[in-house]
């Protein structure tokens, strides 16, 4: 999550695991990190850059990502490329919930990560981390393929550091049944707060 660690995160003491488990972790993480199947959720120009990353010059196959999984059931990493309107929010949420564990999410581009300022309007979600948990944010408008590849390498590094003893990272996050939100509404309002010097409007509601 963007600003704070997951609310259900548990601290695991390091050094308490047997040598065999840590070696097995290393093997599992190594194989997971090098066979990530992306689920592209491309809604805008970031998806064009994502296609360029997957094409021959930048070639995501070098990272074990040659198989684009257009079905969430067979995907490991959701790459949200582009702005997400409010109308797509339940769709994105459902796609994330349909992906089996272990799963990760890359928020590609400024729109997916923060709403991009210029889309600070009534129709666009201000950062997909208000809908689903995000592992890596890739800045840029749109990011160049090098930027996306750097984000993927960061994700691989993150996967390499996972420990099987820490069960909390594999637990499915359940949204609050009443509001259907993962994080408290004041945090969402704060995350969605506009930056820069654009017009600050007074809003009613919560």
């Amino acid at each position: 999550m963007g600003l704070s660690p997951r609310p259900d995160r548990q601290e695991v003491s390091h050094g308490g695991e047997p040598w065999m488990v840590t070696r097995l972790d290393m093997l599992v993480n190594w194989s997971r990190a090098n066979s990530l199947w992306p689920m592209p959720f491309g809604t805008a120009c970031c998806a064009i850059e994502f296609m360029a990353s997957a094409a021959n010059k930048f070639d995501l196959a070098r990272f074990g990502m040659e198989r684009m999984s257009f079905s969430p059931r067979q995907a490991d990493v959701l790459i949200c490329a582009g702005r997400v309107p409010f109308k797509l929010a339940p769709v994105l949420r459902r796609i994330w919930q349909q992906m089996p564990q272990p799963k990760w999410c890359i928020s590609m581009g400024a729109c997916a990560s923060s709403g991009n300022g210029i889309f600070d309007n009534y129709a666009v979600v201000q950062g997909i981390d208000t809908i689903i948990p995000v592992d890596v944010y890739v800045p840029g408008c749109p990011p160049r393929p090098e930027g996306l590849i750097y984000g993927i390498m960061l994700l691989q590094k993150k996967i390499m550091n996972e420990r099987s003893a820490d069960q909390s990272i594999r637990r499915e996050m359940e949204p609050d049944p009443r509001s259907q939100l993962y994080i408290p509404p004041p945090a969402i309002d704060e995350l969605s707060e506009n930056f820069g010097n654009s017009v600050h409007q007074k809003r009613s509601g919560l």
Partner: protein
Amino acid sequence: MTAQPPFTTVIAGSASQAIPASPRNVAHRGGPANPTAEAIERQFAGAVRRVDVVWGETSVVVDRARLSDIVRWLHDDPSQRYDMLVDVTAVEFRDPEQPIEVVWHLRSLAYRRFLRLKVLLEKSQPLSVPSVWAVYRGADWLERECFDMFGITFEGHPDLRRILMWEGYREGFPLRKDFPVRGRFSRSEQLRQALAANPEARYSMEELSIAQAFEDLPEEMGKRLATGDQQVGE
């Protein structure tokens, strides 16, 4: 003015004659109006309130009550043949006293004419205009979009509901001037309402069903598909 070859190289500062404001030297205001404007005035006496010619395009402001007849006549009459509806939209001005304009863009492919019809709606009155769906089936989604964004009711539209925003969107009509650009509710409330919407509930069964398309097929084709007989149509 002498005829010019289609492509000429003009070096800055060396043009021997004034370069026209636009390729066809069209004046901003005035100029020859579309002959249809006069024809409407002749056919429907008193229905035309104003005729503007802006950049060579003719806008005719007509009475709300006569709009259906005018559009029907423009479509059917052999001297007009406006067979294509390009757009239906609305304009709201910043000045609160100024009425909302509903705009229809019509094109006559046969006579190569373009006509803009307008109806003025006072904001104190209920915002409703007659639908042209019966004349142009393409008006279906255009009128739905106009309803979604401006809240203008199109009387006679068969299925007038939101098209861009989701069903049950409660914040109002986004392109109205009194609508704040970030919406009326807080971000968390907007997100909560959006996530509560069912993605599948936005389509009517008619939109998804092939059975509906089946009824619109030609009779003999429908019969052939229904019986599975390849020889019926011959």
